[in-house]
């Protein structure tokens, strides 16, 4: 069915002088001055990234725990699932599935991480080679050739002991126990981290050559316990509106508020698929925003709300002052949108809204111009 729509020709309204180029230049000038002034006075937030080295020096037990989690599969990334791996011995923990839909798994494991290899065995092998460390080489050999049950027995004992460990002169002191080669391995990795070389070893893995762009494994190494602890201390954890605020008094990305808000309330804050459903919820809300012009009710809302009467108050005052609407041939249907006017008005080619046709009495502004008053039809288009 063809619907006749009206659209008013903006060039047929009374006009006033307007300097668009000047407006643009002046606006750019004002914004530049304001922004540069604010930037010069307040600067921008910057908190140096946390390095493995710093953590190893301040909290060597923390590094030890990350290493053990990576080695025995208890760590979050060790058993994450796609896109990093297929979980630990087939058990994946961080796969989100909503209504049976799990797009996370559709791509396989493009960013493969086997944490035992990537975070522990490979860096230690590099260290052993670099330092001609016979004891470490032997420990690695013992560990790799032991049965899985034996490996787990060592790491479990060591993990329990880590809970009771103390630090003396920067060295981790453990109660005695049956840790096999794992005690030496963990200790050497803590020392590797202290030296500052661990990051380099991790970065090396995710970059196939000389250039270091992909910092995946370096970032993943601390993500389990250490980084959340630090974030929590400065109120940046997810349940504390995390990403929504920046350092101290600086404004953060406040435009993410609707998104971070979801993480404060159930079901998004509690559900195991919170991230996935939050992403879909935001996608849905965004679609609503894009489609506002076609959403019944929403697209008529601004007509009902009186805000437009404030924005265009000069215009409405003018209509009232000049009585334009009183003489308007379209006044019967004037409360409706033009596009909804009846076919009857269409026929009368001379019917023109009187706000189009400025006569002298209507002009109240010297700058006003009248354009081609001869044109006397509404534009119509069909679609």
């Amino acid at each position: 069915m063809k619907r006749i729509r009206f659209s008013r020709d903006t060039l047929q309204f009374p006009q006033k002088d307007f300097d668009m180029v000047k407006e643009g230049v002046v606006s750019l000038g004002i914004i530049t001055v304001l922004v540069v002034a604010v930037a010069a006075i307040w600067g921008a937030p910057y908190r140096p990234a946390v390095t493995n080295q710093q953590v190893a020096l301040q909290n060597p037990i923390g590094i030890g725990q990350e290493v053990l989690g990576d080695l025995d599969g208890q760590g979050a990334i060790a058993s994450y699932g796609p896109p990093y791996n297929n979980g630990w011995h087939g058990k994946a923990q961080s796969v989100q599935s909503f209504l049976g839909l799990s797009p996370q798994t559709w791509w396989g494991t493009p960013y493969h991480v086997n944490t035992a290899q990537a975070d522990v065995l490979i860096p230690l092998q590099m260290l052993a080679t670099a330092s001609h460390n016979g004891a470490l080489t032997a420990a690695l050999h013992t560990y790799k050739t032991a049965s899985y049950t034996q490996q787990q027995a060592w790491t479990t004992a060591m993990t329990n002991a880590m809970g009771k460990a103390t630090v003396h002169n920067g060295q981790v002191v453990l109660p005695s126990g049956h840790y096999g080669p794992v005690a030496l391995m963990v200790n050497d990795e803590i020392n590797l981290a202290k030296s500052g070389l661990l990051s380099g070893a991790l970065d090396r893995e995710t970059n196939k050559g000389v250039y270091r762009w992909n910092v995946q494994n370096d970032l993943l190494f601390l993500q389990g316990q250490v980084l959340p602890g630090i974030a929590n201390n400065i109120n940046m954890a997810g349940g504390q509106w995390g990403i929504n605020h920046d350092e101290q008094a600086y404004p953060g990305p406040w435009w993410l508020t609707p998104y971070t808000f979801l993480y404060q309330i159930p079901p998004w804050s509690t559900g195991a698929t919170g991230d996935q459903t939050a992403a879909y919820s935001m996608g849905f809300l965004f679609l609503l925003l894009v489609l506002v012009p076609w959403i019944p009710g929403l697209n008529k809302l601004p007509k009902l709300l009186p805000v437009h009467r404030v924005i265009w108050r000069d215009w409405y005052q003018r209509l009232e002052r000049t009585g334009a609407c009183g003489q308007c041939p379209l006044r019967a249907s004037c409360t409706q949108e033009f596009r909804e006017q009846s076919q009857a008005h269409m026929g009368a080619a001379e019917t023109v809204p009187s706000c189009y046709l400025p006569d002298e009495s209507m002009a109240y502004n010297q700058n006003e111009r009248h354009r081609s008053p001869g044109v006397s039809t509404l534009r119509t288009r069909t679609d």
Partner: protein
Amino acid sequence: MNWTQSMRKNVSEKLTWDHLLPSEQPIYVSSLVYSFGVFTLSSLVLCIVSGVVMAAYGPTWYQYSGVGSLFRSVHFWSVQAFFFFMTMHLVGQFFMGSWREGRAFTWVIGAVSFGISVIEAFTGYLSRGDFFSQWNQVQSKDAFNGAGIDGFLNILNNGQVYGLHIAVLPLVLIGLVGWHLVAVRSKGVVPPYQARANAKEGRRS
């Protein structure tokens, strides 16, 4: 149909100087709300200029040198200004119902620009290279993975994130904003809603 001819006809009819860069505006264009779009555009220009300078000198420069961190601060605050004015612009255009009378597509391009801007800003935060980047990178990976974007984007790969931030997304955004402006100009500023019934009888009637 001759595509060339119809394209020429369309362009010369719809994109005249009177449309693109008029020296007059309808008198109903009289409110601060109309300036929010221009302020948004000005802030965007400032974001781009400061960003181009930063990209030219490189990360170490803007992270550790004095002039560099001034440019980084300008970039930071122009983004704040950009989002502030864009939000005001969006809200203003909503209350004016500016999608009326053939302008729906202008709204759609605007809204999509908003979405792209959010992603652009996010990749920017991740390119800061400080604790904020580090923390948000490991935090947001679960959201990107969970939503199924992991097949395309490894949020922990700074090469990819930085490339998106300084080249791909800005190009998309500039294209969209240009399109938005041409759409606005080719239609002209949306006329006000009709007067209300009780406002119809003027003094002279």
